[in-house]
């Protein structure tokens, strides 16, 4: 399988606080990768670096072979460096990467349908097509009958399903999910996980930052354990979750279970 996402020598610090400390990852196309780790381990920052919501200090991310947010340029001194792209180009790249937020971040003044259709309309799809596609996507997440409802009138689980439909509307090659169930009541987690599961089965490349260890084991092909901004251990879920080798991983898994 070809790599859908490559992370090469990623590093990021907020002031003196190092959040990502030299991460290299290769995520195959069509795979589901779960990133686990204690809070403050840099997992959300790493996910946000993939679509350049959080620019890296060092290193580069590629999606579909294209460097995201930066391009390499050789300066007058003959030294190649990554230089940030103009915002217009970054925005175009982002439209090919779906992102689902922990707190949904739906646009509250727009209906569910308008939320989903917004991205395609902005990228030039004509209004009628965008709306009919949005309707199909809402059907797919089981909310076809809520198309004209505004987010505040939906439950948390329904809002997150609309947010997933919104992320899918631009037909992205990869979808990034940042703790998609952490802000939900326990009884609503199931419906969102169900949608993510069907997404995984459809062959979309997914990267999920999550606390749901059981879900990660069930859905993920590959689990990455992050601590202090470094990849401590990675492997298939059967190996990493059921038989962790590193003491930090063992410690973390024993506490969350």
């Amino acid at each position, binding site marked *: 399988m070809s790599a859908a996402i490559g992370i090469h020598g990623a590093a990021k610090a907020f002031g003196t606080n190092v959040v990502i400390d030299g991460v290299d990852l290769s995520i195959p196309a069509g795979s589901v990768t779960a990133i686990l780790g204690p809070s403050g381990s840099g997992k959300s920052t790493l996910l946000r670096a993939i679509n350049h919501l959080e620019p890296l200090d060092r290193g580069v991310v590629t999606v579909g072979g294209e460097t995201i947010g930066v391009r390499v340029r050789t300066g007058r001194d003959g030294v190649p460096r990554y230089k940030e792209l103009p915002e217009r180009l970054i925005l175009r790249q982002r439209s090919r990467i779906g992102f689902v*937020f922990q707190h949904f971040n739906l646009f509250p003044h727009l209906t569910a349908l308008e939320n989903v259709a917004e991205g395609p309309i902005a990228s030039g799809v004509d209004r009628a097509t965008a709306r009919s596609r949005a309707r199909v996507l809402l059907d797919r997440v089981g909310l076809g009958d809520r198309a004209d409802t505004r987010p505040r009138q939906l439950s948390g689980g329904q809002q997150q399903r609309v947010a997933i439909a919104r992320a899918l509307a631009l037909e992205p090659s990869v979808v990034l999910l940042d703790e998609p169930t952490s802000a939900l009541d326990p009884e609503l987690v199931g419906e969102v996980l169900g949608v993510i599961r069907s997404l995984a089965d459809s062959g979309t490349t997914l990267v999920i930052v999550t606390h749901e260890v059981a879900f990660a084991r069930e859905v993920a092909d590959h689990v990455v354990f992050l601590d202090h901004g470094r990849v401590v251990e990675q492997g298939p879920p059967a190996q990493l979750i059921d038989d962790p080798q590193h003491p930090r991983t063992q410690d973390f898994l024993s506490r969350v279970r």
Partner: protein
Amino acid sequence: MTEITEVSRRDATSVDGVGDVHDVRRASRPDDVTIDAAGRAALDRPVVPLRHPLRWIAAALVLVVLLNFVETLFTNEQWGWPAVGKWLFSPAILTGLQLTLVATALSAVISFTGGIVIAIARLSRNPVLSGLAWGYVWLFRSVPLILVLVFLYNLGSLYPTIGVGIPFGPQLEVPTANVLGDLAIGVIGLSLSEIAYASEIVRAGVLAVDHGQHEAAQALGLPRRRQFVRVILPQALRSIVPAFVNQVVGLLKASSLLFYVSLLDLFGVVQNLSSTYPTDIIPLLVVATIWYLALTSAVSVVQYYVERWTARGSVRSLPPTPLQRVRAAVRRGASGGAGGASVGASVGPRGASGGESGGARGASVGASRRSRGASQGGPGGAGRLDQAAAAARSVASGTSTSNDRGIS
């Protein structure tokens, strides 16, 4: 569809839950020592709320003072009510009123758009732009409006001609007095200072929008301008509108300063007339007061509806407008009985879904819920059900009490 059935199932369980708790409490503790015989006998009667006699006394005192003042309006002939009637719609006053309206409206529109521009510049990451915007706000918030106006009025003596051209190259120049009429000077002066305030209002509104909204717009790859116009501004408007309308009311009254640059606005006309008719000073001031009150009230009505519009998405369901409430009351009076309940339900902004029968059903559900004290309802339906409940209680109180019994 599935959601609706889920909701109703959840409600059904909660009904059972409440019922169980109730029954268990009564059944298991029949001889509770903390409640004596009288207490137990009172259990079935409604709790009597605390009375507030002092409130009534205070209100009466205030009313007496107020009525005394109202009496002087009729007895004191200095108010000159006949003269008020004479002047209220006189052509001179109406011309002044027109000028006040035109100057205020133009300045409000200019200052709102200008305020957005300055706010964007202020929020920009370009230090020159944001520095200039800061300097503009600093300057025009510091200088009194009247000074700005008089300065502009005398611009002709500072720059006899104004023009544009290439620096040190050919210039296109015209006399200042030809370009700037009195009204233009007035509107520019008002706008210059209003823009400074409006930009701070817009900036505060933009900053109040949740950071996640910016991120979501970026993650979708929306172009910069669309992020602002489609996502950020509509949400910012919710906090911008009340503050800006407040500013417009201030502007309406500040327009009376135009008198000092020889513009005859409402206040200017009153000033002029009262020097011509010194006996009518009080009536003329009353006329000005009445008109300013009327204008401000009109602005408030507009504000109410604009705020309702900007609130969409921020609240689950909007309460009915006063007009809708009146219409509902009229219809309730006309049809009466069960029809009243359906009116209560269809008044709500989303109540159109229920017809006559749907409304009545909503009412009975709402009433039974209210009586259990569990009125949160399903997502979105809360407001409608509560209204329906209220309607049902007022109209068909018989059924709602029977519901009460049925549940407890």
